């Protein structure tokens, strides 16, 4: 399970996250929501070791906070970053293989990823930079899956994608759910879609946890208020 | 004492130095001032302009040769030929700019270095410039022997202080503002109406003009010039060393760097290679532990002291 206590994140002197707590069971998906600049990406970066952080982050028996980014990757944290960040001089296949670089055991192989996203098999030898935004998103997700992660972090899953393509990506992600013990944290702009895709949700507001709870039967009005930081009164 | 008064006292002392110094000391002082001027000129281009030139030794040589050729072929007094040497290098720089300014970063650097090499080879092969054998200073007769060392010193002082004053004034002007904006973020600078090409061209031409003048001053008292000495890559080594150690992009950098450079050179004079090892190691150390150089370290020290004073 994932156990986060009092997580702060910093970019230089700027503090982006203030004491966030979170606890997820194996197999659960968290929908991480919040306005622009609320700290969603900072939260993911603090977990995977891309930014300075303080607080406790435990994944299973591993104390992630004590590890550098490289060590967290080996411990099973994988990120599909905002903006996709393809390795531009690598082909699609090579990008996917970079995910397998940590050599963790598990079900995900090149074949399974191209089974999930058939287009990637077709374009395996193309430079990743030549793909469309949606295809690059699939590469980014597939690349993260190739690590056989215990904790999958998906940043801005459908940002900048055409609605049809976003639907396709989410359909693939839905297939992942309930299939494994993998914990997933998903950042998604579209709150309705996020709630539909998650088991639990966490709404951030200005770097603090504003509201959290199960997705099933979530009160959308309350989420809306937490999202925009309006008083309950 | 106020810094202004301190500065004035220092300048007066420097001007009066020839009346209290022997020949050897004066010669060393002139050499130091030439290095300060050269480093100030290079710092203007690299530290403020962000253009790294490994080819400034070419302009040192051109400045020196301009002095020798102008005083040979024209009725110009050698002292008057020094600003003229600056004009010659400025014109040459201006003519080269269309080629070099198509290039950025490493390409610009390689282009500059190659230009300097071409200068050297052309001067070496050209009878007009005396070929590989070099040229004597034809106008040496018109120089007063007794005051020669002192005059060379004053010229070096004038060029060094002139270069410093120029950089100081430039950085306080609107032009300096544009230059800094350009170095920090070219795209942003363009968007507020800075014309990168013109700003860089102006800085480049000024820098090579100062370099040419310093080169001319440096070869004045030698009474003889050869391509090997004039276009020596060690000019470049000295300039870069002094600027790094002093603090790149800081106006006091060349002074502090030159001071340390000459202290090291004079104390380790028993072995030319050990002193260069020490210089190189110092440069490495500076880049590792204090990238702002001596000037940066001094700034930090002074600001820490002043914050301690203001805190009760």
């Amino acid at each position, binding site marked *: 399970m994932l156990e986060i206590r009092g997580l702060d994140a910093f970019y230089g002197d700027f503090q982006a996250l203030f004491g966030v707590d979170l606890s997820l069971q194996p197999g659960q998906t968290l929908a991480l929501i919040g306005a622009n600049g609320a700290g969603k990406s900072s939260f993911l970066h603090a977990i995977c070791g891309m930014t300075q952080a303080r607080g406790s982050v435990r994944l299973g028996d591993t104390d992630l906070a004590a590890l550098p980014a490289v060590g967290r990757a080996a411990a099973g944290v994988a990120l599909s970053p905002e903006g996709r960040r393809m*390795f531009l001089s690598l082909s699609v296949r090579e990008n996917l293989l*970079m995910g397998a670089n940590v050599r963790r055991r598990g079900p995900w192989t090149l074949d399974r990823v191209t089974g999930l996203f058939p287009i990637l098999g077709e374009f395996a030898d193309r430079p990743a930079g030549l793909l469309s935004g949606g295809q690059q998103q699939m590469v980014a997700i597939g690349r993260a899956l190739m690590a056989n992660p215990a904790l999958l972090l998906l940043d801005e899953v459908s940002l900048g994608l055409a609605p049809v393509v976003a639907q396709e990506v989410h359909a693939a992600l839905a297939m992942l759910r309930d299939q494994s013990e993998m914990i997933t944290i998903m950042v998604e702009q579209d709150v309705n879609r996020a709630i539909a895709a998650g088991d639990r949700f966490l709404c951030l507001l200005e770097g603090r946890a504003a509201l959290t709870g199960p997705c099933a039967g979530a009160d959308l009005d309350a989420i809306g208020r937490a999202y925009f930081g309006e008083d309950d009164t | 004492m106020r810094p202004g008064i301190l500065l004035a006292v220092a300048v007066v002392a420097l001007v009066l130095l020839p009346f209290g110094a022997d020949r050897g000391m004066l010669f060393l002082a002139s050499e130091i001032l030439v290095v300060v001027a050269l480093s100030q000129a290079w710092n203007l281009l690299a530290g403020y302009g962000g253009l790294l030139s490994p080819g400034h030794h070419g302009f040192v040589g051109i400045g020196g040769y301009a002095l020798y050729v102008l005083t040979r072929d024209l009725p110009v007094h050698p002292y008057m030929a020094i600003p003229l040497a600056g004009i010659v290098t400025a014109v040459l720089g201006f003519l080269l700019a269309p080629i070099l300014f198509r290039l950025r970063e490493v390409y610009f650097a390689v282009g500059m270095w190659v230009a300097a090499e*071409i200068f050297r080879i052309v001067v070496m092969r050209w009878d007009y410039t005396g070929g590989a054998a070099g040229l004597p200073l034809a106008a040496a007769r018109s120089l007063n022997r007794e005051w020669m060392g002192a005059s060379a010193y004053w010229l070096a002082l004038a060029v060094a202080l002139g270069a410093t004053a120029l950089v100081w004034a430039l950085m306080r002007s609107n032009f300096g503002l544009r230059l800094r904006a350009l170095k920090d973020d070219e795209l942003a600078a363009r968007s507020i109406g800075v014309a990168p090409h013109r700003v860089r061209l102006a800085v480049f031409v000024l820098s090579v003009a100062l370099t040419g003048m310093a080169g001319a001053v440096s070869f004045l008292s030698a009474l003889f010039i050869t391509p090997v000495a004039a276009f020596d890559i060690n000019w470049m080594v000295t300039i870069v060393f002094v600027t790094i150690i002093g603090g790149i992009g800081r106006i006091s950098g060349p002074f502090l760097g030159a001071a340390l450079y000459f202290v090291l050179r004079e104390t380790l004079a028993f072995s030319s290679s050990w002193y260069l090892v020490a210089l190189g190691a110092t440069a490495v150390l500076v880049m590792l532990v204090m990238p702002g150089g001596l000037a940066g370290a001094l700034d930090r020290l002074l600001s820490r002291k002043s914050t301690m004073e203001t805190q009760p």
Partner: protein
Amino acid sequence: MIWFETLFSGLTLGGLYALFGLGLSLIFGVMKIANIAHGELVIAGAFLAFAVVDLLPVPLWLLLPLVTMGMFAVGYALQSALVNRVLGDDPLPPLLLTFGISIVAQNLLVEIFGADNRALDPGWLATARIGPVWFPVGLLPLGTLILTVVLFGVLHLGIGHTRWGRIVRATSDDPALVGLFGVKRRRVFAVVMGVSAALAALAGVLLAMRSSVTPFSGVERLLIAFEVIVIGGLGSIWASLLGGLALGLVHVISFRLDPASGLLYGHILLLVILLIRPEGLAGRKVTR
């Protein structure tokens, strides 16, 4: 006939130049820094070879791998101990740092070995010739050229078609991201610098078999290496081979026609290339 010979010696000299450029281009491509100490790495390779043969008379086939491995270690150590500490957005600190390293290296070589000219005696290879009677070519220059092409091929395969190469290219593309894939970028940089130093050293040994060198010979080799990568173009290692061959041919032909010209026509070639094809003969267009 004489032109065949000129062509041949231009190509073999060009192969050596290409090898000077290869390591520099590798560093520039992966780390986006200009290694000013590259010329000294070439010369250090030559002097390491002198030191080895002074101590014990090892044959050439053993000398080359010894020097290569030794200089790999030197490059690796330099990168992890020094250069890695100043890598960042600003290209100036690594450049100035390697400038300092070059001055130290040059003068340490003077202190240890003296400033005299030295060369490596290739033994029977010096006079061995091969080929048809009507056009015998020196075995040594031919071997140098073949070795160069083989090294380019090996590096091409290594970078383009191995796991290591994939990691190097990914690190070059996005050094901040590769940590998430378990890649220690500083280690990648150190290995790349080691490879660059090894290639430079190999070039240095070949140079010392061809002509004499002094500890001060590095500066000119650095300039040639820069010219090679600018003439050839950045972005592909084959561009360095092309740049080296072009520069070698120009130097040999101009020496034949105008013996006192030195490197002049090579410099002019560079300026012409910069004017008409700034991305180099085989480089990708860089938009900046």
